[in-house]
């Protein structure tokens, strides 16, 4: 944001909130990437590292929430500044949740015996993970850069993720019906696909909050104002 700010204190605090949001976003995206990597390159120590990183995300989120509240109390922002801080408070909750979903993915992978799972299905899940990774990156960039166009793209990106989820679900249930052997593995794979789909939903939420921040309208909610018009 290349804006002129009224005071050094205001400018410094706004900059810090933006930097911290970016750092939190990077932590969550990194967690998601590490978790999806475990599908094809499992390493138990990385699951434990991820658990530590999830705790770090929680602490960082609380600190950033406090910073935002202190900013509102002391600077009493209006207009675009107020909307930015409000959006930050909302979006960091989504970012935190993305971190937790990454942990859920890692824990599910930890339960799977990959010898009984077709490689094709694992590849498809990894592809879904990559796609969600791109969506997460796009959502956080759209928010930090206040990029309305990119934020709007996320809604259609999510349709692709839903399609990938349906595909994994169909294949997994089909394999489960063919043989009861290894059924636990397929249940965990469905869980992973579900966690990825929910991560994508969080990216959409970040995009929608960015759209609201910039336009005061949500693409997914019919405004009461529209009824009055």
């Amino acid at each position, binding site marked *: 944001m290349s804006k002129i*700010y009224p005071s050094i204190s205001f400018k410094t605090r706004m900059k810090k909130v933006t930097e911290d949001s970016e750092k939190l976003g990077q932590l969550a995206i990194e967690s998601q990437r590490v978790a999806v990597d475990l599908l094809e390159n499992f390493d138990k120590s990385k699951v434990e590292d991820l658990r530590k990183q999830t705790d770090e995300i929680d602490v960082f989120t609380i600190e950033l929430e406090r910073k935002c509240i202190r900013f509102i109390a002391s600077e009493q922002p209006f207009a675009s500044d107020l909307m930015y801080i409000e959006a930050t408070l909302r979006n960091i909750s989504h970012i935190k949740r993305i971190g937790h979903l990454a942990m859920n993915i890692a824990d599910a992978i930890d339960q799977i015996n990959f010898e009984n799972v077709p490689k094709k299905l694992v590849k498809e899940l990894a592809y879904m993970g990559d796609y969600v990774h791109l969506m997460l990156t796009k959502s956080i960039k759209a928010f930090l850069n206040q990029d309305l166009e990119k934020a709007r793209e996320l809604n259609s990106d999510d349709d692709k993720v839903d399609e990938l989820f349906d595909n994994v679900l169909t294949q997994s249930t089909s394999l489960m019906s063919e043989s009861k052997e290894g059924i636990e593995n397929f249940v965990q794979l469905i869980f992973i696909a579900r966690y990825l789909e929910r991560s994508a939903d969080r990216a959409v939420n970040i995009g929608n909050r960015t759209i609201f921040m910039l336009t005061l309208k949500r693409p997914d909610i019919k405004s009461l104002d529209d009824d009055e018009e």
Partner: protein
Amino acid sequence: MNRITVKNLNAYFGDAHILKNINAEIPENTVTALIGPSGCGKSTFLRTLNRMNDLIPSFNHDGEIYLDDTEIYDKSIDVVNLRKRVGMVFQKANPFPKSIFENVAYGLRIHGVDDEDLIAKRVEESLKSAAIWDEVESKLHDSAMSLSGGQQQRVCIARTIANKPEVILMDEPCSALDPISTIKIEDLINRLKKEYTILIVTHNMQQATRVSKYTSFFLNGEIVEHNLTSELFINPREKKTEEYITGRFG
């Protein structure tokens, strides 16, 4: 229904063009906040509404201001009566060096009310409406100058209300008050809007958001933006408004 309608108002002090083509509609029983940097014309605008600027020899204007259907600058207008209908509260409380009772009764007396029972009744009603009755009931005949700044301001509001105006103009009424007195005045404004049309000049943006339904942003003698307060402070239409309310001005 609009209580005040301003059409193409220009105001001048000598050669200085202070208000430039102001158009405004002020609905009855609402609070309208006037905001803007110092010297932008908001107090001058306020003072045109009860012809207080007439007291300044170099003042002149063109355009029209209607109070209901009456053009207030019409030659037939009795200015004293106009100021009874459009009362004013100033930045600094300005009680007369008289008792609390006589401060409130003053306006009634100069408007010819001489029924002492009626005056006493109206003084009590006004002090109650101004939310200060409980604090002064036992010392009505003490000097108003002995009260705190916040109390003096509420006595001045009672003095304005006693004349049963239709419009109350407030020129930064809380700028010299502590937060508690400010809250009391703001609560009072919220109560008074049920019966009166109020215009308030304020430099305190939070105050504008708390008390007003509409806000006008003045800049260099013009109204840059007039909108619902809830809209103007969250989603201003004009870039200049955004820059002013976020402190990026200049």
